[in-house]
């Protein structure tokens, strides 16, 4: 299952390309994904759209290992990772932020950021002196970029507002140095102004930090505005996959599947 060049604890760097091929997955008697094929090039933002129940969340859960697919492949830089455990995939650089569960509310802001470091390669070698400096640097970088979090570093994450919490989510994703980032509805429940900020942060993650991003969103308009490619799911099937601008311009498609 793992490619021959891969040593335990080793992890390649930089954004990875992601592809799922003929993915079939479901829960009990219900089929959530019916032979889904999607490609996301390295370093791009791909948004997955569709109504509730279309299979978007299941797709992310299969990629991150939370759900075993019945058949099909999940290729990260060409290597099939389907069926691996979430912990292994996280350590390989696939970071999944589930809907509404980006942070652990009972931990402090700083502890949540430290959580992001748990998937660094070679995490077992905690004692190495270089590691401590590395961790401090990662924290400092996150605090510099998100000064609001710096002010709140010892406060519990449960005391943060919705927008601040999403900021913490993005900051933690930054600290984790993922190769592929799966975001499930990061703008859910946020005020429009905050939503824009979150989308901006997502774009920066992709452009400045070189991360391949798969973004599941209900707010199709905002998502298509920042994405490179778009995929529309309906009842577990891909009904459209194209350049984001083309999708946004396709009025009929938008009306039918995306509600605007």
């Amino acid at each position, binding site marked *: 299952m793992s490619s021959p060049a891969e040593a335990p604890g080793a992890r390649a760097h930089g954004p990875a390309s992601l592809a799922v091929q003929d993915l079939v997955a479901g829960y009990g008697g219900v089929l959530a994904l019916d032979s889904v094929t999607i490609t996301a090039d390295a370093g791009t933002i791909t948004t997955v759209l569709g109504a509730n129940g279309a299979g978007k969340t299941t797709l992310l859960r299969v990629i*991150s290992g939370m759900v075993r697919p019945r058949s099909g492949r999940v290729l990260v830089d060409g290597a099939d990772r389907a069926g691996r455990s979430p912990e292994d995939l996280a350590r390989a650089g696939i970071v999944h932020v589930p809907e509404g569960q980006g942070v*652990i509310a009972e931990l402090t802001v700083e502890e949540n950021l430290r959580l992001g470091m*748990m998937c660094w390669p070679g995490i077992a070698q905690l004692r190495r002196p270089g590691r401590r400096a590395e961790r401090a640097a990662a924290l400092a970088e996150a605090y510099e970029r998100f000064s609001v979090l710096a002010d709140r570093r010892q406060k519990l994450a449960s005391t943060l507002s919705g927008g601040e919490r999403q900021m913490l989510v993005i900051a933690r994703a930054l600290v984790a140095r993922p190769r592929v980032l799966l975001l499930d509805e990061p703008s859910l429940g946020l005020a429009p102004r905050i939503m824009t900020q979150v989308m901006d942060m997502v774009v920066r993650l992709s452009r400045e930090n070189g991360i391949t991003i798969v973004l599941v969103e209900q707010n199709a308009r905002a998502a298509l505005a920042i994405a490179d490619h778009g995929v529309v799911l309906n009842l577990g099937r891909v009904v459209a996959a194209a350049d984001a601008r083309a999708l946004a311009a396709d009025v009929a498609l938008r009306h039918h599947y995306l509600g605007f």
Partner: protein
Amino acid sequence: MVEFLQFTLGGISFGLIYAAIALSLVLIWRGTRLLNFAQGGMAMFTTFIALEVIYRTGSYWAGFVVALAAGIVLGAVTELAVIRPTLGKPELNAVIVTIGLLILLEGLAGIFYGGQFRSFPTAFSDIGLRAGSTPLGVSRFDVFVAAAVLAITLLLAVGFRYTSAGLRMRAAAFNATVARLSGIRVARVITVGWALAGLLGALAGVLVSPSTFLYPNSMDSIFVFGFTAAVIGGLDSPVGAVIGGLLLGVVLNIAGGYLGADVTALIALGILVVVLMIRPAGLFAGARVRRV
């Protein structure tokens, strides 16, 4: 008044033993949402092992250390061999399995060691201490008990709060999904939790056995009191476990002193009923939403 003070002080060492059991139950509850009915039995078993070592080597401390080590191993092995297979199955399975383990351990102890009450040595004198000419109701050994439990509790608290491993355990307990997606090997963390619980149980066993004598069922009532303390404090709260244990120990000792020892079990269960009626989540439970 002096009598009251004696009863209070005397209740502290038993209270901390209940606290140790309560803490072990809370550790397991937070990590796996299970009540380990075998906790007392495991403690009894490791204490028998300690006794064996003490007989053979003549050294109390060798027995003490071996008991703690055996507790760690027994806890880890139990999680891996007995509890892990029940994951994902109906919750009742895990309950039945821990009760089964309890019966197994008590049966094995009976087979190997017989049912007679054995005396267990103390490391320090158990003669009552005095302040001037007034008996205090505690002995050197009681002080050792308090110090040992408090020291281990403090170590655990510091470990959980300030180390990476502690962060992993707390993360896994609060939200196993996010923890796994962060790369934390939650299964391993759970095993460590059970190992620590085993350590705490083993400690409670060697500390209480001088008073209760050691026999296959000797930890049964201690388990009940420890469980009561855990529920009083709130099953999710380590602080609650310690304070619940102390409260229970002191109250029961005072009640037992004034009303006679027969009444203690009744009072313990009475307190349990009252707490469950007024504040079912426990005295120290914060309002907490747990995502399923």
